[in-house]
């Protein structure tokens, strides 16, 4: 029960962005002529916010299937980088292993990669609860958006910023936790450089790949920095 409550507390910060983005998707899909069943199934089986929204416009303009596959790959390829840190952790989780892999979104990734577990909780149970609750929340908001999205009277424009805000808080926390500044600065620098070189839609993959390569090359420097600081504790 403690683990459950702890897990719920961790996902409160991005409740709004999940609800809003799912809602927006549901409304769009509905307008494109798809019934609520489609919204529900997308939430269950795709479970990727920005890609689902992109999919609606691909569907409406009848883009060829091969092109859809390529687009999906480029929109979601950042996920390839998310899993790297969780292989050892997730594979100890038995039947939950495939579920944990397939439900790692931007949000759950940022929670799980920066989580500090209190002693009283069961880590594995916390991770699984977070994954499951987020997925259910997403399915709910997609479905709800499709059914009632247009009835929401308040103008919620801008609420999607709460996702950005959440990622910023994770960055601040990591800045505190990490002993080496090199990983954060590498990410920032490569993102900015590739943003100006390649533009808004194409910078993320090169930025992630180059960061990975630089961090791999600087392994010895960074590891020594991290160990040295750990010894002081």
């Amino acid at each position: 029960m403690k683990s459950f409550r702890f897990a719920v507390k961790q996902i409160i910060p991005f409740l709004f962005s999940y609800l809003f983005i799912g809602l927006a998707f549901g409304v769009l899909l509905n307008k494109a002529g798809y019934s609520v069943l489609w919204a529900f199934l997308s939430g269950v089986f795709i479970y990727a916010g920005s890609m689902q929204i992109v999919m609606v416009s691909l569907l409406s303009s009848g883009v060829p299937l091969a092109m859809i596959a390529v687009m999906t790959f480029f929109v979601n390829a950042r996920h390839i980088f998310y899993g790297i840190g969780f292989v050892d952790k997730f594979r100890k989780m038995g039947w939950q292993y495939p579920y944990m892999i397939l439900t790692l979104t931007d949000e759950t990734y940022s929670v799980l990669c920066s989580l500090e577990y209190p002693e009283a909780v069961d880590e594995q149970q916390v991770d699984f609860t977070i994954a499951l609750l987020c997925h259910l929340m997403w399915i709910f908001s997609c479905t709800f958006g499709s059914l009632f999205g247009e009835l929401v009277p308040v103008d919620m424009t801008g609420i999607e910023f709460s996702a950005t805000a959440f990622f910023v808080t994770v960055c601040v926390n990591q800045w505190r936790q990490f002993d080496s500044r090199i990983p954060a600065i590498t990410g920032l620098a490569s993102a900015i450089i590739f943003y100006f070189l390649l533009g808004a839609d194409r910078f993320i993959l090169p930025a992630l790949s180059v960061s990975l390569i630089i961090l791999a090359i600087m392994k010895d420097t960074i590891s020594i920095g991290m160990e040295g600081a750990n010894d002081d504790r």
Partner: protein
Amino acid sequence: MTVDFTYSVAALMIVALVTALTRATPYLLFGGKREMPKTVSYLGNVLPASIMIILVLYCLRNINLTAFPFGLAEFFSVAVVITVQIIKNNTFLSIILGTACYMILIRTVFLV
């Protein structure tokens, strides 16, 4: 609008499968029974710090830097989030204040 059923089912399945594939790639590469290469587990530890900053910029990618309001609402609100998070260390509070700030700014000062 009429919906082409077969096409739509195929499209949805493709999006779901390719998304799943991107998520499963690291496990397909390193998830076997053998031990993880040291460099990979090291990367798993340090990469999140790079990834999260890149993800923040990814969220801000649609800002137009060449025309009013130059993303000022976004930059100001991000600054609010960072400041509150440093001073209060309360994630929920930082998000609420930052988002409220953003929603107010785009309705008042930085109308688009």
